[in-house]
Structure formats: structure tokens, C-alpha cells
């Protein structure tokens, strides 16, 4: 998370034009090397600048991937209003208390993106049609987690502090968007801030583990294509989704994810993830966005399960309501 003290208000003058800046940087920038000769992707990165961007493109944008100048200024103004209201709430005499995290917990970008969606392919920025079997899978899941709090099983794997899934851990959310990359000879390690995930990616020609082994975060195998780290993940369980916090459509165990990490500047990695699962979507699709190093952004231990008082409180609250005759 970001230290409150280094949070800065977005200044339009400092806003970079994301994609054009990245393209220019990509042309003039050569990624450094580790002492053993691999492209050096190491650092702590965050997807905070993408918080305002929806996963799927609102239909009014059509095939247009970027905001107009006017739309972009509106996004900046909206962001500034949000920051101001959260700061006011934090500093005010009568802070608004709700069941949601207080406003001052939340993070925000300071170099906002011009993207109209995280999904970049298909060209309309929308996830392809979901198959009937995946629709049924997702409806069953939604019915389970949107029901009464009869047990912990009525909550998402994220709320249960199990996981947000392999790509749900990097998609931008309200806070905890840190990704730390550590490289050793023959390996890339990725630490995701929320729920303290650590992913080990061997750089090998090897195969995946046997098909009977299913894992929430899957089995990753990496390779270098030029200066881009390409990570193929299989052996995934069918108990998560792939977008923010592991939400959305429930995919099958046959999901195949290909991620690409390309360092395009000292502080920026372009991240891309392509999802293929014929039992879930009518076609493959790709989400892409930059993750960036920000001064003062550090990844600390996130002891989610150890501190999951919300689970006790939700369940005991529901039992208390029943006892009082207030629930079915």
C-alpha cells in the first residue's frame, strides 16, 4: 500500500499520456540485465493508475480504445473530486461510518490511464460471449455467494482470504494493488500484495505438472521471448474468476492463461493476459494495462486470513438476527 504521507493530488500538468508515452519509451529504452543475463523486471509495481478503468468497455465507446481529451479531463476531475471527498471525510468532525472501508484506506492513481477498458481484444473491449455451461456455473456460484450467511461457503474465496486467483491478483481494485517481482537464476518470483500470494515461475522448457493436480493459482511455466517474460499457466481450479478480485464468470479447469510482462521504461511494465477456455468463452480474449513503480509504494505482509474478523462478525451477526427473528 501507499503511505498516506506521500499521496499526492493528481495534477493535470503531470499527467502523462499513457500509451503514447509508453510507446516512445519502448523505442528509446533498453531493459537492464540481471548479472546472469536475463532482462531485469525487478521492482515493486502497482496498477493504481488503472483503478478508474472498467474491465469491459462501456458500449457507447464502440471500438475506441482511448478517451478523447474531453473525456479524459472528466476522468481526472472525477478522480480529484473522489480524493477530495475522501480526505474531507478522513479529516472531518463527523466521519461517515459504513460497513465499507473508510475512504482514507483507498488508493488512487496519479497518472491516470486513457484506456476505455482493461479488455483490449476483441476490438470492442468486451469479453466474448459466455457458453451456456459457463453461464450455469456462474449462476450457481452467484446464488451461493449472494445468499444468506449460513456458512463461510456463502462468501467468495477472496472474502474467505483464500485467494483472488492468478490474474484477479493483479487487476486494479480499491487498494492493495502491489506486485513485487524478484528474479533469481532460472526463476521469476511474483509477490502479490493482497492475501500475500507468492508465485514461482521456473524459466524452463518443461511441461506442466500432471493434469490431476489443480491449484487456485495454477501451475506456471515461463520463457523469454526477446525481452518479454511469457508465462503460461494451466492446472487451474474451476473455483475462481479471472478479473478483479477473482470475480466474474466461473471458468473451467481447462483455462489456459498466457501472460506477458514487458518492461518499457525504468518504472513501467506493460502487462498483458490472454484467456482461452472454450468451455467458458466463445473465443480467446486479452486484457492489457501498465503496472508502475511509484515512490514510496511498498508491499507489506497482508495477513488476510489471520485477521479475518469480518468472517466471524458476518456469521455471528446472521445467527443473532435469526435468534431475534429478523431473518428467514
Amino acid at each position, binding site marked *: 500500500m501507499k503511505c498516506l504521507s506521500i499521496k499526492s493530488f493528481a495534477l493535470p500538468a503531470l499527467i502523462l499520456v499513457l500509451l503514447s508515452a509508453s510507446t516512445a519509451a519502448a523505442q528509446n529504452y533498453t531493459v537492464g540485465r*540481471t*548479472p*546472469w543475463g536475463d532482462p531485469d523486471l*525487478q521492482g515493486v509495481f502497482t496498477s493504481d493508475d488503472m483503478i478508474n478503468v472498467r474491465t469491459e468497455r462501456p458500449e457507447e465507446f464502440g471500438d475506441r480504445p482511448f478517451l478523447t481529451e474531453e473525456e479524459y479531463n472528466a476522468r481526472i476531475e472525477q478522480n480529484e473530486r473522489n480524493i477530495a471527498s475522501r480526505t474531507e471525510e478522513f479529516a472531518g468532525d463527523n466521519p461517515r461510518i459504513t460497513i465499507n472501508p473508510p475512504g482514507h484506506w483507498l488508493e488512487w492513481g496519479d497518472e491516470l490511464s486513457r484506456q476505455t477498458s482493461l479488455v483490449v481484444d476483441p476490438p470492442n473491449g468486451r469479453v466474448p460471449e459466455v457458453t451456456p455451461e459457463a453461464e450455469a456455473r456462474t449462476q450457481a456460484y452467484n446464488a451461493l455467494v449472494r445468499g*444468506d*450467511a*449460513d*456458512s*463461510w461457503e456463502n462468501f467468495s474465496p477472496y472474502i*474467505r*482470504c*483464500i*485467494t483472488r486467483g492468478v490474474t484477479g491478483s493483479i487487476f486494479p481494485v480499491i487498494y492493495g494493488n502491489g506486485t*513485487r517481482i*524478484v*528474479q*533469481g*537464476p*532460472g*526463476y*521469476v*518470483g511474483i*509477490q502479490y500484495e493482497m*492475501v*500475500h*500470494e*507468492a*508465485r*514461482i515461475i*521456473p524459466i524452463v522448457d*518443461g511441461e506442466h*505438472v500432471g493434469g490431476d*493436480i489443480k*491449484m*487456485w*493459482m495454477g*501451475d506456471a511455466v515461463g520463457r523469454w521471448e526477446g525481452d518479454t517474460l511469457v508465462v503460461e499457466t494451466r492446472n487451474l481450479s474451476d473455483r475462481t474468476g479471472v478479473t478483479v478480485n477473482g470475480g466474474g464468470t466461473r471458468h473451467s479447469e481447462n483455462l489456459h492463461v498466457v501472460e506477458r510482462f514487458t518492461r518499457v521504461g525504468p518504472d513501467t511494465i506493460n502487462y498483458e493476459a490472454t484467456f482461452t477456455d472454450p468451455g467458458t468463452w466463445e473465443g480467446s480474449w486479452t486484457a492489457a494495462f501498465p503496472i508502475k513503480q511509484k515512490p514510496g509504494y*511498498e*508491499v*507489506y*505482509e497482508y*495477513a488476510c*486470513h*489471520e485477521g479475518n474478523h469480518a*468472517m*466471524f462478525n458476518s*456469521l*455471528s451477526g*446472521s*445467527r443473532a438476527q*435469526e435468534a431475534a427473528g429478523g431473518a428467514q
Partner: protein
Amino acid sequence: MWGVLAMPNPAAQSLQTDMPRMPDGKPNLTGLWQTFGSAHWDILDHSASEGHFFELGAMGAFPAGQGIVVGNEIPYLPEALAQKEANFQNRLEDDPMLKCFMPGVPRTTYMPFPFQIVQGTDQILIAYEFATSNRIVRVDNDTLSPVDSWMGWSNAEWEGDTLVVDVTGFNGQAWFDHMGNYASNQLHVVERYTMMSPNHIEYEATLEDPTIFSEPWTIQLPLYRRIENNAKLLEFKCVEFTEEKLYGHLRRVEDDEDQE
């Protein structure tokens, strides 16, 4: 291979010529490692004993083990010893490991699960299979722990071929084993990782906590490389295996009215 470059480091004292090394000559600890034994149950010498649940029969019983504590004695202060005994009595309720909590240092090292070291130049990631716990070891970048945590805050430097990791910033909630051995948030651990051969590391940790122990004490045990060709860190996300234990009493119980 990366790690077997000829070593340019004249300070390297090892007799091993096939020691995996980084380009700068430091030992390369990158790999999948695991301890043997039953220290996660009891870090002291112990006989074989029956398990908690007779239904599990032999599978649930505890094997005998030779302790990992040098001198086989932990120098508790009197009040702390009383707390350790209380921990033991309540171990089925209070042992954090049973709840899938992060095991802390050093217990995380001798959990009966592998762990992966990814050794970079100025930071080292150690990812443990149990509970997906992990930590960053900062090399030659001595920083103060900004916040207490389960796994602590690790700074390291090389002493010749030994990686010396200084760990502080604990939250004082982790135990050292299932017998209730423990420390407070004043715990200070100094770990020493010395590669003795391509496939084993001597692990030593000195534990100091003036509020719990009368003097520092030391554990020692080897870490073995998992040498199977296909050995990989798998996943043991144990939260879902503990939820019935943690929240079972809060599950909705169907009453007679519901069944009508």
C-alpha cells in the same frame, strides 16, 4: 547452467568446486528446499506418541524425533515457562498452525512442506508451500521494520559463504512447534544459511527475547534440496481446511420450523 560459473571470489573457502554460485561468486541458494524430521511438532527430543484423534490411527500419531535445539534445553524465564505450559494444555485450540496462520520464523523453515528460494542480487524471495506464506529478505540494505508481522522483517548480509539473516518486527503470535514453545514480539532471530554441498544447506538460527528467555539459544538442522527432476512448489492453501474448525460453531443450524 547459471549457477555453476567458475567462482571468481577468492574469499570463498568451500572445498566444494561444484557449489552453485551466482556470477559475483556468492553461493546461489535458489532452489526448492525442505527439512526432514518432526521439529514442527516438537523442537526438543521426543518419543513417538499417540495422536489427537484415535480415528486417524497410525496416520495421526507423532513420530519420535531428535530435537533441533542445541543442548536440548530452552532457557525460559519462570513466568514464560508457565505460559508455555498453558500453551501446551490449550494446543488444540491455540496452536496458530492448526488455523492455517503463517508460521513465523523459524517454524516456517521446518514445517513438513517444501519452500522455494529465489535469490536475486539485492533481495531474496522465500516462498513456503504451507499457507502460501512468504517473505522478502533485503540484502545489504539494513532497514528498520516499519510494522509488526507474522513473518517478521528480514535484513541480510553475506559473511563469506554464509547468508546471515537478521529477523525482527514479529507480532509475537507465532509458536515454534505444537508443544507451545513460543516468544513475544521482542523476538530477534539471526538465521545463518551455509551451503555445505550442492544439495544441502546447514541452517542455524539463534533466538533472543529478553522478556521470555534468560539467554539466547540456538537451533540447527539441515535443509535438503528436492532433487526430483520435476520437483516444484505446489499449493497448500489451507484456509478452507480450517474453516469448519474456526467458524463451525457459527454455521446456521436448521431448526424444526425450517424442516416443516
